[in-house]
């Protein structure tokens, strides 16, 4: 039996039941070590199993054309070999083929967890500004110029406070 990662003879055989499906993997000594299959903290195995199953998925959905990440030069072949991506930008590069795989791997493909505070703020600011802009247009349409002036002031202040926000 050959290693599913390289062509060496496989000496490590793994079976795990995930979601009721039995997954089998054969690895050679060095690939097993590299993948941390012997890792006592045990995180690596699930990653490995899913990563491998996933990489064949990504390959088949590529439709022949080879995608390459413009930021780090990572290719689909690299992904198949390692089960890992090259850089954060890879997620945009491989967005299409990843979609199906993520669907299979996770509860959903949309993040619902934590958002870094500065992005949250940015998001909320964007929403608030859009809101003010709409109010402004409405008040002008209603010829309520006093209110329009007030909103304009608010928007101006908004711009100032945004500009004076320290960068990271």
């Amino acid at each position, binding site marked *: 039996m050959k290693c599913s990662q390289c062509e060496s003879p496989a000496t490590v055989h793994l079976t*795990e*039941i*995930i*979601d*009721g499906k039995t997954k089998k993997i054969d690895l050679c000594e060095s690939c097993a*070590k590299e993948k*941390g299959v*012997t*890792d*006592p*903290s*045990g*995180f*690596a*195995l*699930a*990653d490995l199993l*899913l*990563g491998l199953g*996933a990489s064949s998925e990504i390959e088949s959905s590529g439709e022949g054309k080879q995608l390459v990440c413009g*930021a*780090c030069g*990572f290719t689909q072949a690299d992904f198949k070999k*390692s*089960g*890992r*991506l*090259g*850089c*954060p930008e890879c*997620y945009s590069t491989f967005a299409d083929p*990843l979609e199906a*795989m*993520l669907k299979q*791997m*996770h*509860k*959903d*493909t*949309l*993040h*619902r*967890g*934590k*958002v*870094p*505070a*500065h*992005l949250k703020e940015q998001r909320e600011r964007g929403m608030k500004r859009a809101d003010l802009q709409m109010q402004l247009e409405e008040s002008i349409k209603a010829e309520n110029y006093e209110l329009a002036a007030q909103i304009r002031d608010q928007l101006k202040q908004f711009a100032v406070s945004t500009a004076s926000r320290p960068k*990271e």
Partner: protein
Amino acid sequence: MKMELNEFLISAEEFGQRTGPHDAIVLSSRVRLARNIVGIPFPGRADRESKQRVLETVQPAVESLPEMKSHFSGAMADLKAVEKQILMERHLISREHAAKGAGSGIVLNRDETLCVMVNEEDHLRIQSIRPGLQLKQVWQRIDKFDSELEAKIGYAFSDKLGYLTACPTNLGTGIRVSAMLHLPGLVLNEQVNQIIQAVNKLGHTVRGFYGEGTEALGHIFQVSNQMTLGETEAEIVERINKVVLQIVEHEATARRTLLEKKPNELFNHVGRALGVTAHAHIISSKEAMNLLSLLRLGISMNLMPGLERSSLDELFLLIQPAHLQQTCGEKLASEQRDLVRAGLLRKRMKGVKGVKPPPEPSDA
């Protein structure tokens, strides 16, 4: 001033004395977050130079946080092999990380409850660990720590996909919530595989911590979430917490059943474990872990007067290869370790009286 790791680490004795909710069954609760820096290739793809840059950015940022007021911070390349193994035996770093050299590092807090691995599979692997079942507290703590850190480090984050990680299995929240469970009752009752399968069906992972299935060394198992995208961290923590509580319930029932239905078998297991640990002259870490596990079971059921759980948990650590070598102050070959290990156990079990069955409940 650079502090040596072995001067920094808390003693095995102190390690064993830590307590937490349900600690007769739940050894520890852990939450890990995977984070990466925007615009830099993941460690598997990064060249030496950018890895070094990540290390030089992350280490000072982590060290400056209030939770790291007293810390050990080091480069993996500067740690001795035995030191890396000690960190592994304490479950503070992964085997993968122990194998890392230039460009990788760790920052560890005073009581060893917070540890950041730099340039493992991701730029940052932040872990918080607490004894017993405290998953929610551990999550709250690591969440706060992570928020403080994100003010100093530009994390790679996408509106749609969340925190971007080297492996798509960690994408989104980047969270791995896990608990280490001691399940000798379920193993002796031959129910453990059933439990493993049931929990796996729920989409979580259960496995022997050191080995597979019923072969799990020391009857120690780990439960963790598998999916990281599409749910909030709190939901994931809550689900794992629920699963753990259910397993705790099953284990408690299994222990009671053993005592009621197969007391002689139970006393035999525990008594033999004491006999061997008290008198053997050669003992492997594998055998020692299984025997200590049975003694721990006996203690939890009040069958072992004079033996404390804290000293058992201390021994669990002390019998590991690197810890043995640290105690002896010299490198030991495997055969020598088996001798020293047996000697240590004999010394500790001296004077421990045999199994004392609980008094029969009288039908008054």
